[in-house]
């Protein structure tokens, strides 16, 4: 969070891309687009372009990582070298390692882990183009990929960020708002369970602002949740399936 927070909201109260403070970016979710994965999803959220795939439940490699009483979920969040302004080295950065962990922990509460003891599920996320709030879009896509793989789940997880720019609480931060704004609050929610499975924050917020931001983010999650369900329905009802 840098200080240069200026002019991110214009006189009409609109953001750099014309959105209102509580407006999501356009979102497109496609299901089952990778033929080799057990489940997959592609999300576009603004200029974010992200692929998620789920493999499993399957035998764990290496075997000693398997657990006798439950499934193990592993997750790798990875950015393509060309996904950001300056080329990113393909070896995992500390940021990618942390995000892989928190994304995994945001997905774990959804799965019935005890149904498949001794097995593993691998979630692979590739950010092809990044434009802010990629961890949220990644969770949204990964959750759909898990459903597409037929992993038994309590609910989907939908994720969305809120934050603060120019003293305004806004929804679904894009890159410039993330970098120049004064706070970023990514949130993931299992709506049916009212369960927050991811919560992080960078920046500075008063208690009141924080409460507003969380509320706004949860609202965003619920909207995204509807799109996730729609995308899954389209694949499974529609005749023209993307992959057989």
């Amino acid at each position, binding site marked *: 969070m840098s200080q240069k927070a200026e002019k991110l909201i214009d006189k009409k109260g609109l953001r750099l891309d014309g959105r209102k403070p509580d407006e999501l970016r356009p979102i497109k979710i496609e299901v089952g687009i990778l033929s080799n994965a057990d489940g997959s999803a592609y999300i576009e959220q603004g200029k974010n372009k992200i692929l998620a795939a789920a493999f499993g439940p399957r035998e764990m490699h290496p075997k000693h990582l398997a657990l006798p009483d439950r499934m193990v979920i592993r997750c790798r969040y990875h950015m393509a070298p060309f996904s950001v302004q300056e080329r990113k080295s393909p070896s995992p950065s500390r940021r990618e390692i942390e995000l892989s962990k928190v994304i995994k922990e945001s997905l774990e509460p959804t799965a019935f882990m005890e149904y498949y003891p001794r097995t593993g599920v691998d979630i692979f996320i590739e950010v092809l183009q990044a434009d802010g709030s990629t961890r949220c879009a990644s969770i949204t896509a990964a959750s759909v990929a898990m459903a597409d793989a037929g992993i038994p789940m309590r609910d989907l997880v939908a994720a969305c960020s809120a934050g603060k720019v120019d003293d305004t609480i806004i929804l679904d931060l894009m890159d410039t708002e993330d970098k120049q704004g004064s706070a970023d609050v990514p949130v993931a929610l299992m709506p049916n369970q009212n369960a927050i499975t991811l919560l992080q924050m960078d920046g*500075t917020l008063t208690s009141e602002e924080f409460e507003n931001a969380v509320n706004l983010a949860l609202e965003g999650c619920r909207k995204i949740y509807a799109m996730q369900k729609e995308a899954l329905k389209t694949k499974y009802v529609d005749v023209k399936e993307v992959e057989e």
Partner: protein
Amino acid sequence: MSSVITRVKQKQIAQTIAKGKRLDDRGLTDYREMKIEQGIIERAEGSARILLGKTEVLVGIKIEIGEPFSDTPNEGVLTVNAELVPLASPTFEPGPPDENSIELARIVDRGIRESKTIDTEKLVIEPGKKVFVVFVDVYVLNHDGNLIDASALAAVAALLNTKMSNYEIKDDEVKIKPGYTQLPVKKHPITVTFAKISDKLVIDPWLEEEQVMDARISMAIDDDGNICAIQKGGSGYFTEKEVLEVAKMAREKAAEIRKKLKW
């Protein structure tokens, strides 16, 4: 000694907490005994050791001259690293940092960075070219739970204890002069962690509680009571109500703990 506790013990911990008590007789919102020592590593520019019950964390600060990042030419550089050295726990392995030590370092980093603890603009020697680089090395010496709060506190205590060499610029070269200046520390963020066990929120979980908790949540609070960093961890979840309750309690606890820091 063993790092994994029995199921019987797990049940016992959970049942006790369900009744609003804890096996070590603390209240749900009581910290363990806390001891702060500053300046114990003379070779380091700053240092502090925190004892939180049996959890022990040492932070050493080294300051070197380096280049600023190209997008912040007028700011010094902060680098936080955490080592879960294997003598601290039978579950820690020697080797490069794993996801746990990276997450720990990044949580400590965000608490300091987002609260603007260090006045990084005062670390500039030549704008865009030479700045002071502040290395914060978190060294966990004994792991008995809640490494996050202990590490974050030790980091701030160490920064408060940090002095930088005086220097002058002669013929385009930085020359070290005698004497020291205190590192410019503006804020004193305190990180407070709660675990969720048996649908209760308990503060400062110790090792055995961490092994049964559903999830944890940590909030860094600055001197004005603002929240400046949050991290949820673990494979469980929180409700919105719980999150707001944590925010409220974290503010109170942070203010209490901050009083123990000397500056």
